[in-house]
């Protein structure tokens, strides 16, 4: 199976090409430019340098979320556009699962943490020793809840992800289990890992691992601020005030953003 993988969920923009599980090429960049400026030029470079005929592709793999809302959408719209143009299916890969797969082969628990602001992380808990096993599926939770969960499990754990620099101190202070942090070359999202996990998911789940380009949408794991306000308004019987524009303040403001946003 020939897969073009796209990664735009966090600080890294990347793409990778695999053929039957073999990595043909991988481009990655982690700079201040927006993914909108870097992603497609990298894909073009990858295609040209690998001498890849796009018609020969079998699927587009992409991290479906969670992550930076804007980054997820740049990746999703790009994947959907390429898949529409080439009439290919999309293999959506959970972002946190893909991060954990970076450390495939380790006997310790693997715990990716992505900074979700408001003292929360996008996280999950995985065994990656023989086959990938999800012990706690990807979710947005307070860092304190994650620490309590890991202490309860009582096993050694390796952390990775863009949340490490943000929460390293609190993890060191409050964890009672042995823990360590992945080296920087394995700590962030990588398109080659997305492709590898996509291939694994297709082997395991067959067609069910794929969705049509039309149906694919990001999974944010979080409602927008406006939707949360709507739920509060509905609960308080204030839908009229909402419709009168008195509750949503950010209408003309910038989009809600997360670390790595507008990238």
């Amino acid at each position, binding site marked *: 199976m020939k897969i073009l993988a796209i990664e735009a969920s966090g600080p890294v923009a990347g793409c990778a090409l695999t053929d039957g599980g073999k990595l043909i090429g991988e481009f990655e960049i982690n700079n201040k430019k927006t993914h909108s400026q870097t992603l497609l030029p990298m894909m073009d470079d990858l295609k040209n340098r690998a001498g890849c005929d796009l018609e020969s592709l079998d699927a587009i793999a992409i991290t479906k979320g969670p992550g930076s809302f804007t980054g997820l959408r*740049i990746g999703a719209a790009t994947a959907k556009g390429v898949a529409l143009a080439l009439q290919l299916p999309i293999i959506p890969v959970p972002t946190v699962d893909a991060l954990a797969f970076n450390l495939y082969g380790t006997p310790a628990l693997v715990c990716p943490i992505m900074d979700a602001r408001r003292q929360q992380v996008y996280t999950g808990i995985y065994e990656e020793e023989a086959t990938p096993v999800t012990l706690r599926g990807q979710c947005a939770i307070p860092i304190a809840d994650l620490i309590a969960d890991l202490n309860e499990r009582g096993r050694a754990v390796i952390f990775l992800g863009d949340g490490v620099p943000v929460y390293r101190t609190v993890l060191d202070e409050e964890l009672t289990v042995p823990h360590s942090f992945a080296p920087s070359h394995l700590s962030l999202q990588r398109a080659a890992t997305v492709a590898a996990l996509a291939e694994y998911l297709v082997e395991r789940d067959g067609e069910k691992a794929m969705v049509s380009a039309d149906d694919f949408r990001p999974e944010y794991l979080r409602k927008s601020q406006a939707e949360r306000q709507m739920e509060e308004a509905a609960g308080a019987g204030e839908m009229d005030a909402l419709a009168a524009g008195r509750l949503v303040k950010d209408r003309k403001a910038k*989009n809600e953003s997360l670390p790595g946003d507008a990238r």
Partner: protein
Amino acid sequence: MEKDITILGLESSCDETAASVVVNGRTLLSNEISSQIDIHTLYGGVVPEIASRKHVERVNQVIEKALSDAGKTLDDLDGIAVTYGPGLVGALLVGVSAAKAIAWARGIPLIGVHHIEGHISANFLAYPELEPPFICLVVSGGHTHLVIVRDYGEYEILGRTEDDAAGEAFDKVARAVGLGYPGGPKIDKAAREGNPLAIPFPQGKVRGNAYDFSFSGLKSSVLNYLNTEQMAGREVNVPNLAASFQKAVVDVLVGHAMEAVDTYHYQKFAIAGGVASNSALRAAAKEACEKRGVGFYCPPPILCTDNGAMIACAGYYEFMKGTRSGWDLNAVPNLALGSR
């Protein structure tokens, strides 16, 4: 006979996901618009994050519908034109990313288009005989510009708003009197039952450039009036207020535009943008043009609202000039008219 040039236009700068196929810049083959207005109405206005999410969900279906309605496939396209600014950055990025991806995967030329250029170009679709130069008033929820269209893609901005866009003033006043969102059509409808001379609101005056607009003063006058009436315990006649407010906006828009027409001696005047659907504005502009013997052009409402056809049309003229965008094309939320 030269080969026909077929362009797919894609637009996602605010709350409409839209795509269209246009041939030679003038012949509209399809015009698919997926509006999100129902959901934004719940919030009293467009919520950027929700708009962006909806665009991602709809973009492929809208493009496919535009192609199938036109009886075309991607193989028939000579170019893909996409709005890259101005607008909501998260919303713009969806259209830009999708357009780039399709163009890249199929080796089709990509053309980034300015949203306002698109609105102006809607007139070329509505009037196949219309050619520049002419003067155009672009009025929408986000923009108020008085422009000389010297040639295709060549503009001189005579005036712009110093504060709120005209459509924004409609939204704010509609909200204040409880008509709700979207303000333009609701005020327009209420005003039909009202007396435009009932309440003398001041026209927005600006210092400096005679062609610039200001609507925040007018908006404050309306809010003050509402406040005064409320304090005095008098019930506000909403149709009268809507008609009087609308007249104040239309008077200043048409007044400035006709001053430009008279000063620069152009024989053609066009309006464009969402507010160009306003019935009072259309009637007043038509009358003023007829009085002067100047040709008046206004696209039908379906081409005034945000749509992909106007982007395909503007994209066609850029395509013919040789404009091509790179794979690093980015959304530019405050893109200036005439810049590239």
